């Protein structure tokens, strides 16, 4: 067996873990290894632990196709790289969080008020999903069919038309704001608002919890009380 590739059978199928190193070498070794063991791996559902490898979607798609050529379905990716996770998401491949995270936050991550935040500079299209334990900032649109789940606040510098859940782990102070707020569904903590604005006023808006109800106001907010 190749020293950089560990393979084992699990309850959910076959699991393969690869070591760090040059990705193209690792990939070739992986495919070579699979070719040798094809009798054992035929029609397998594969969980691939790529560790810290940062795989772009095109690269991951190629690997998925190469595996498909060998009758193997790339079912789940385990990764410590946010780039790889995003690629898997956009290709519709399942993601499982790595068991051991030993590294500092990735470069895209930043912090707001001491809490972690993730910044996405592109439009989230239908099927895209961001799930993050801190704040989420999107510079771009969030289209219908896309979703954001954040433990902190959600800020969208664009049109918000997808589904969002701020304060997902119970933070009732979380807010959602967007240049145009017309979500399919908006949740804060365990409260839900399915009300879509009847008339879309193209003004920035913010949503927050007030007395157990989700309140949506145009921005800047009028000083009340």
């Amino acid at each position: 067996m190749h020293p950089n590739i560990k393979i084992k059978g699990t309850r959910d199928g076959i699991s393969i873990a690869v070591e760090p190193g040059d990705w193209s070498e690792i990939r070739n070794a992986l495919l070579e290894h699979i070719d040798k063991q094809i009798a054992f791996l035929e029609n397998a559902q594969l969980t691939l632990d790529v560790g810290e490898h940062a795989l772009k979607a095109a690269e991951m798609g190629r690997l998925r196709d190469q595996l498909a050529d060998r009758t193997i379905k790339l079912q789940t990716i385990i990764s410590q790289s946010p780039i790889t996770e995003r690629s898997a998401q956009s290709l519709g491949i399942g993601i499982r969080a790595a068991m051991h995270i030993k590294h500092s936050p990735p470069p895209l991550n930043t912090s707001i008020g001491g809490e972690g935040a993730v910044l996405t500079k592109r439009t989230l299209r239908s099927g895209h999903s961001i799930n993050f334990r801190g704040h989420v900032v999107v510079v771009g649109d969030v289209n219908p069919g896309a979703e954001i789940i954040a433990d902190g606040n959600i800020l969208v510098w664009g049109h918000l038309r997808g589904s969002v859940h701020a304060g997902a782990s119970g933070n009732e102070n979380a807010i959602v704001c967007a240049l145009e707020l017309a979500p399919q569904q908006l949740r804060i903590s365990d409260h839900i608002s399915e009300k879509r604005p009847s008339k879309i006023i193209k003004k920035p808006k913010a949503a927050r919890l007030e007395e157990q109800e989700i309140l949506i106001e145009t921005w800047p907010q009028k000083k009340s009380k």
Partner: protein
Amino acid sequence: MAGKVITVTSGKGGVGKTTIAANLGAALAAVGKQVVCIDADIGLRNLDIVMGLENRIVYDLVDVVEGRCRLRQAMIRDKRSEGLYLIPAAQTRDKTAVSPSDMIKLCNELRPDFDWIIIDSPAGIERGFRNAIAPADVVLVVTNPEISAVRDADRIIGIIESEEKGPAQLIINRIDQNMVNRGDMITQEDIVELLAVGLLGIIPEDEKVIVSTNQGLPIALDDKNLAGTALRNISKRLLGEEVSLLDLSNKRGFFGKIFAGGRQ
């Protein structure tokens, strides 16, 4: 010749991928280009019917991939257009009979002999769709002015972007200007604003298109038909010509004129 591969796809079914693929093939061949259309919808083949070549199929795409025939043997020459060929899909197999790398290999074999290779993608985002976009140089995303079709187009565009096959170009099919005027149909502006990709063409709703597909006669060869003109214009834009979008608002029917009232 270094042929370009165009994949026509949509996500949602029934929006007009096959009709558009057949008509772009006919329109490009009509101006003297060498064109081959490939039906990638294995198991649900239709492109042969729309092109009127159903009764000439001997070999198909899967036969080529599995080496039962030579590539040339599976290529059916069109009845009317010189320089237009079809590689039909297999009807008795499924999408897994072909892989993305098979499609890339096949297209690379065709590129030296053709100007355009047009792939008619199946609906969906699974294997068949991945087979269809694997060799693509240009991806045309077809949508209808319906929320569900636009939603699926958005999903498809996201996948195309992340697989670095983009930028996708958009075709809005079956616009009914009377419905748009009444405010009962989403407008092309709304669709383009949401999807944020280049608009390659708009095609008006026209029942003659259904007649033409049933008869296997491409509407794009009909000079007097507006939908046919729209399709020809798309083919011209693919060839790099600057053709402005059709102004459908002037082409109101009898009822449209009445209901539009004093509006310009």
